[in-house]
Structures are given as structure tokens and as C-alpha cells.
């Protein structure tokens, strides 16, 4: 009986991972082929395998590889961060930005830009400021919540930090716009258009470190979600679980905000899609959510470019697309809760 249930669980996980990996691969290739100049599937694969060396295509493909990699990494980070934050808050409606990360990142970046407009030429420095801002926001939240004494205090502190700093960041961004004339919607709603080749290694490194670290605390999370008592009596320290998971969340989210801006709903929707696919055990949920997060962002990035190439207008921010996909999802979750 139990053995059968266990086997089913494993089978569901294996099948889902296979299905998700395949989908992500196909979508990534599609993402490289779609755009103002569309490249055939075969050309993409040939280029990636190094068989063909058409120089005109190579330039286009290289640019799109960078965009696609950024989407995959940012999406995976957000997917994992979403699972972590829902776990430590024991709240299925929590998402990573709840920790007060995104708006503090924006505030710090805008402040830096106002003080030194020439900063805009160095993306690496902007990224650095954004990341520092995200960590700063997280530290504020952590201190306000009395060092993460509970998941709920963390959420409340996060909401406080967010509401203070989002007001500030809007004002600052408005000022930045008058100084620099860049459309700040991209920063606010996310975009991969400005990602550079040099960003990819940093993004890869933080994603890998963050995601691997999160795999080390899956069991303590599994115990923690049922209550501190369960965590303690199974030999874990609930406080340490909260702190570790929140730190990983802020690093993953902070880095993704720094590189592609704020992409809403992925951190919320991805864990739920995975709960449906592989169940709620964090050992399975985390890797699956990394893949689904990546799929969602790559898909949104494809849609953004497809719309732009058809309409001939500029690209929509990614957050708009994930919002349109994600909003009905949130509504569904809330309604389900209300009905219960």
C-alpha cells in the first residue's frame, strides 16, 4: 500500500521532470528562432552544435542565446525562490518579492543613477547596485521581523519595507527618467532586451549556488511546514530553516531583479503548477519549480518578441505577459481559498 503510493510519487516526479526538461529545451530553441528576423529550427540547432557558421545568422543567434539564457536562469531562480518563500511563510499565496527585495533594489539603483548619471553606461555596476539594494531590503525586513522569528512576522515586515520603499522608488525613478530619458517600465516590469553577455556568468553562478543550497534544506522545509514542533522534534532548527531559506530567496530574487527587472507572478504560479504535477514534497517540488519557472519566463519572452515582430512596435515588458498569464491563476487560488 505505502510502497505503491511511494512508487507513484517517484514515477510522477520522473515523468514530470522528463516532460518539463523536454519542453524547456524545445522552447529555448523556439526562443532563439523567433524575432524580427526569424531563424529556422534547423539553423538554430546547427549553430548551437557548431555545424554551420553563417556569420549573419551567428550574430542574431548569439544575441538571442544570451536573452534565452537570462530568461531560463531568472525563471529558474524565481521558481525556486517561490517555493522557498511559500514554505517558510506556510502560505500558498506568498511570492518572493514579498520580502521587500524588489523595490529596495530599484530605489538604490535610481538613487545611484541620480547621483551619478554616467553609471548607466556600466551595466555591471547597475547590476551590482541593484543586487546590493535587494540584500539591503532583505536585511531591513529581517531586522524588522526580529531576525525571522516566524514566517508571519517575515511577511508583515516585508510588506512594511515594500510599501515604504516602493513609494520612494517611484519618485526616484521619475527623477531618473527626467535625467536620463530611459523608459523605466523596463526596470519595473522586467525585460531581457538589455541583458549583456557579461551578465550571464554572474547570473549562472548565483543561480547554481542558490538552487544547490536550497536542495540542502529540503528535508528541514518538509518538516517545518507542519509547525515548529515538527521541525524541532525531527532534529531541525526552525529558526535556522527560516533564515537560510529567506537568505537564498533574497539572493536568487535580488540577482534576477538586477539582471532582468521585476517579473511578477512567476514565483507564485510556478510552485502551484508543480504542486499539481509532483506533489508537495520539497525534494521534488524545488527542481520541478526551477524548470517551470524557466519555462514561464522563456515563454513570456517569446510572446513579447512575437507580438513586437507582428505589430512592428517596441517590446512589451515581460511582467505584463506574466501578469496576464498569472492573474487568472491568482484569482483561481484566492477563489479556491475563499470557497473553503
Amino acid at each position, binding site marked *: *500500500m*505505502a*510502497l505503491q*503510493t*511511494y512508487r507513484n*510519487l*517517484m514515477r510522477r516526479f520522473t515523468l514530470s521532470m522528463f516532460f518539463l526538461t523536454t519542453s524547456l529545451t524545445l522552447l529555448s530553441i523556439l526562443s532563439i528562432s523567433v524575432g524580427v528576423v526569424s531563424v529556422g529550427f534547423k539553423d538554430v540547432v546547427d549553430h548551437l552544435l557548431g555545424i554551420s557558421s553563417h556569420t549573419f545568422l551567428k550574430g542574431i543567434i548569439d544575441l538571442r542565446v544570451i536573452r534565452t539564457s537570462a530568461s531560463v536562469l531568472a525563471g529558474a531562480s524565481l521558481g525556486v525562490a517561490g517555493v522557498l518563500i*511559500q*514554505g517558510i511563510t*506556510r*502560505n*500558498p499565496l506568498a511570492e518572493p518579492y514579498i520580502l521587500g527585495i524588489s523595490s529596495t533594489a530599484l530605489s538604490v539603483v535610481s538613487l545611484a543613477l541620480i547621483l551619478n548619471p554616467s553609471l548607466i553606461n556600466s551595466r555591471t555596476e547597475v547590476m551590482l547596485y541593484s543586487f546590493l539594494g535587494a540584500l539591503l531590503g532583505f536585511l531591513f525586513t529581517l531586522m524588522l521581523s526580529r531576525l525571522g522569528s516566524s514566517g508571519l512576522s517575515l511577511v508583515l515586515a516585508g510588506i512594511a519595507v515594500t510599501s515604504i520603499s516602493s513609494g520612494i522608488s517611484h519618485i526616484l525613478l521619475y527623477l531618473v527618467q527626467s535625467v536620463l530619458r530611459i523608459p523605466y517600465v523596463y526596470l519595473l516590469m522586467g525585460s531581457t532586451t538589455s541583458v549583456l553577455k557579461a551578465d550571464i556568468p554572474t547570473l549562472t553562478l548565483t543561480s547554481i549556488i542558490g538552487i544547490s543550497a536550497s536542495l*540542502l534544506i529540503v*528535508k528541514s522545509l*518538509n*518538516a517545518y*511546514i*507542519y*509547525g515548529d*514542533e*515538527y521541525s*524541532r*522534534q*525531527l*532534529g*531541525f*532548527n526552525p529558526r535556522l530553516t527560516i533564515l537560510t531559506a529567506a537568505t537564498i530567496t533574497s539572493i536568487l530574487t535580488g540577482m534576477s531583479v538586477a539582471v532582468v527587472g521585476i517579473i511578477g507572478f512567476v514565483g507564485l504560479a510556478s510552485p502551484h503548477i508543480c*504542486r499539481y504535477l509532483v*506533489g*508537495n*514534497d520539497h*525534494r521534488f517540488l524545488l527542481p520541478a519549480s526551477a524548470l517551470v519557472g524557466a519555462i514561464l519566463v522563456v515563454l513570456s519572452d517569446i510572446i513579447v518578441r512575437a507580438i513586437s515582430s507582428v505589430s512592428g512596435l517596441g517590446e512589451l515588458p515581460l511582467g505584463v505577459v506574466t501578469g496576464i498569464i498569472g492573474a487568472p491563476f491568482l484569482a483561481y487560488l484566492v477563489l479556491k481559498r475563499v470557497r*473553503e
Partner: protein
Amino acid sequence: MRLAVKNLVVEYNSTKVLDEVTFEVLDGELTFVLGPNGAGKTTLLKAISRLVNVVGGSVYIDGKDLRNYSPREVGKAFAYAGPQVYRVLPSTVFEFLLISRYPHQNRLQYVESLDDIKVLDEVVNELNIGGLLSRKLEDLSSGELQRVLIARALIQKPTILLLDEPAAFLDIKYRIEVLDMIKNLTKNRRLITLVANHDLHLTSLYADRVILLDSGRVVAVGGPEVLTKELVEKIFKVRVEVLKNCYGRNLILPIRALD
């Protein structure tokens, strides 16, 4: 094996909830912690398994101070089944039961061993919850949840089993089945079992030993015969009748409230 509790003191917001609690229990005995609401029964079980902070006193297992145990060793030795579990995040009964094997696994072990699943399966069959494994924790009835909570503690395979109101929501058949099972397990596997409850009748039916608590103090410790009519009436403020059943056990029947 011997569990010794010496001068245990617990405070919440600097009011004493447990005051110099001292007693000893042996393995193989089913011990009931009895007392009115707010007497400190739950706090006592949690203090023993280090789930709440202790201000003074200590707990010894065979003379070894619990403070010398690592959190993992505590996890292997004790299992506490309380009435509470967070069920806001979705999760199935099976996923919930799996966590109980963690103290017995390597920290980085990612999948369960066949043995883990076997232990789980045995307990699941004993408590007749096989049909609930794939159900959502949040959808269970109170009685079903109660059996799942007890199962979780048993799957942890502790040597010291702490059950907080294990029968509160069970119907009469399950109440008898579950308590019989706990009594047998305690005797056959030589467990130290503490059951906290305020049910006089149930206690008189099953207890090998009784610890009577009132306002955080131990009022009486010993065999079920320590529950005399006078003492029980004074502590619980109810009129009771004490009858002998056919096995020669004293049964306590509550009659009416005293004022």
C-alpha cells in the same frame, strides 16, 4: 529504561506553568498525565521533549541528562503527537507521514530506504489509515486526522512516546482500538509512553501509572489506585463514583459538577 524528570520548571511570560515537577516512569508502563484544563499537561510533554524552553530542572534517560543529547538524538528518542498541525499549505497524508523517518536517515539522503517504507506501512495498517494516504491533510475529519497524527509519531519509532489527548476526537470503537494498541506497543516494545488527557474514565480504564497535575504541580504519582474519590473530587470539582469492574479495576464515573 527509566525516564526521570527532576524539579522541572517552565515559565510563560514569567508565570510558572510547571512548578518543580518531579517523577520517574519505567518502560513497558502506560502512564497517564491527568489534570483539569490548564493544569500544564501539554506543557509537561513538550518540556520533556524539549519543545518548550525549560527554566529549571532536568530530564534524564537512564541517568543521562537530556542536555547532552544532540537534536537528532532527541528526534530518535522522543516522538510527540500534539493536536496541532499547520494545514494551510497543501500536502497529502503520505507526504506528512514521510517526514517522521528523517531522524533515522542520513542528512543528505534524498530518497527513503525500503525499510523506511516498511515501518510506515506497518503503522498505517495498524491504525487503518491506508485509505487516507493520498488524501489532502486539510480534508480529513477530526478523528481521521487524529489517527494520522498518532501514526506519524509511531512511524518515528521513538523509545519515548508522548501523546497529547490522543483519543479526544475518536469514536468509541477507535478509542478502544487505538488505546489497546498503544498499551500493547508499550508493553511489547518496552516503550515509555505518556498520555496526557483529562478524561477520568478513560484514565481509570487504561492507566498503569498516573501523574496527577494541578496548576503546574504534581499532586499524586503512582498506580491507578492513587486516584481516590476524595482527591479526584477535590481536583476536578465534580462528584464521582468509583466502581470495581469484573477485572478488579477501579473505574471512575463522573456524576455531576460541584460548585
